[in-house]
């Protein structure tokens, strides 16, 4: 079933928060001045997720190994629910991610987008393009050698 536009946007910010660097996220949250009073629906919990691959990259699924993930769910005082599934074992990261997920569904969305998500997105783009540009510089240019007998 295709996602609604709203679900697609939510999917995108939850994914961004999941991959963020924990200290960066904590610093952005502290600087943002955003606040979200809440109670836990599920306090942060660290566990493993089994990562699957495919045989020959395209075939049947197999279990590759696990990765650490921390999840949390909370409810703001206005009733909005925020969820987080973030890479790693940082419980503060999961809490902030769930708070931002909740705030993004409220009137605070614009502020959270500007103060948290936009800088995270920019950092991700910068990180990826720095690697991609270095990789591109190691691409082999073949040239034909002139043979001695011609």
């Amino acid at each position, binding site marked *: 079933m295709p996602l609604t536009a709203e679900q697609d946007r939510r999917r995108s910010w939850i994914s961004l928060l999941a991959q963020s660097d924990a200290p960066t996220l904590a610093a952005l949250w502290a600087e943002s001045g955003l606040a979200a009073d809440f109670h836990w629906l599920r306090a942060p919990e660290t566990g*493993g997720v089994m990562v699957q691959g495919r*045989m020959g990259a395209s075939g049947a699924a197999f279990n590759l*190994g696990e990765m*650490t993930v921390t999840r949390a769910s909370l409810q703001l005082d206005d009733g909005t629910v925020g969820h987080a599934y973030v890479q790693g074992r940082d419980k503060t990261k999961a809490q902030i991610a769930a708070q931002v997920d909740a705030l993004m569904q409220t009137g605070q969305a614009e502020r959270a987008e500007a103060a948290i998500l936009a800088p995270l997105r920019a950092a991700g783009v910068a990180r990826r393009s720095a690697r991609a540009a270095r*990789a*591109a510089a*190691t691409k082999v240019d073949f040239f034909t050698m002139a043979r001695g007998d011609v």
Partner: protein
Amino acid sequence: MYVAVKGGERAIENAHAWLDEERRGDPAFAALSLAQIREQLSLAVDRVMAEGSLYDPDLAALAIKQARGDLIEAIFLIRAYRTTLPRLGTSRPVDTGAMACDRRISATYKDAPGGQVLGPTFDYTHRLLDFKLAAEGTPAPAPAPQATARTAPTPHIAAYLQDEGLMQSEPADDTAPSDITRTPMSYPAGRAVRLQSLARADEGFTLGMAYSTQRGYGYNHAFVGELRIGRVPVEMDVPELGFAVEIGEIELTECETVNQFKGSRTSPPQFTRGYGLVFGKGERKAISMALVDRALRWEELGEDNTGAAAQDEEFVLSHGDNIQATGFLEHIKLPHYVDFQSELELVRKMRRDAGAGNTAEAAE
């Protein structure tokens, strides 16, 4: 008679206190930070994650520090920690076709779409010690040269041969594979279980098995059709949301070999493949895994079993795990006083009996 003995508590405590001191080394030198291990010994970190079967670079760095650089001990620590983690779910199979490749090479197609991208490789270095690295306080190297990056995804080489019908296809199948961390191994194991087991198998063992196939034991000539290293997002369906989200990004090394196949009664001559996929940067391991995977597929492809070790699923899977192997190997150094006493008694008795016989013979 079995006599339980107890003792050595103080000796053990003191041994561990000394271990802590030795681990730290000379306190005149700065202690290693986890960030230093993670950033500067990243291939050791990757190996511990791959064979520990848990992707978490900070934990792997901690394990390496605690194990004083003994990687198998570090892998043991990670495996033990892994068992304490509740399983939060299973990801969707990662899409390595969407990988942001740091490195991508093919030994079969010079002009592969996406190009031959070397990445930060040891290949073509002269393997001469670089004494500049021995100097302390050397400034960090200047940023490496950059060029305009491609934005298109890097297609898999095998797909081209598959489009021509020259490569055995690997049809997608999302049936939940058996999991060796949940279900004890039984044989025949099947390819999914073999791949899970090989992905976390000891690199040295896997390399040795792969090398044995190259030297003719279960020979199957392999080309490295493609080797790629890079990052992929990991997606998981989250029930409370009702849709899948990315829960993180991991670095993987993938190798696909292209192997000849003569064909059989049911299949025309075509290429077949071996597949290797490991956490982190581990191309020696990924290539080895692909070769061993291909050797183990002899039955499915109707090839001869030449009796080679690399074709023996039970041999490969039951000896490739360095934690299982270490556990059994190292247990023989623990006290076996009672076992040995009984052996000692037996040998003495046999010698007495033999001696008595000799004396009797001499008397005759």
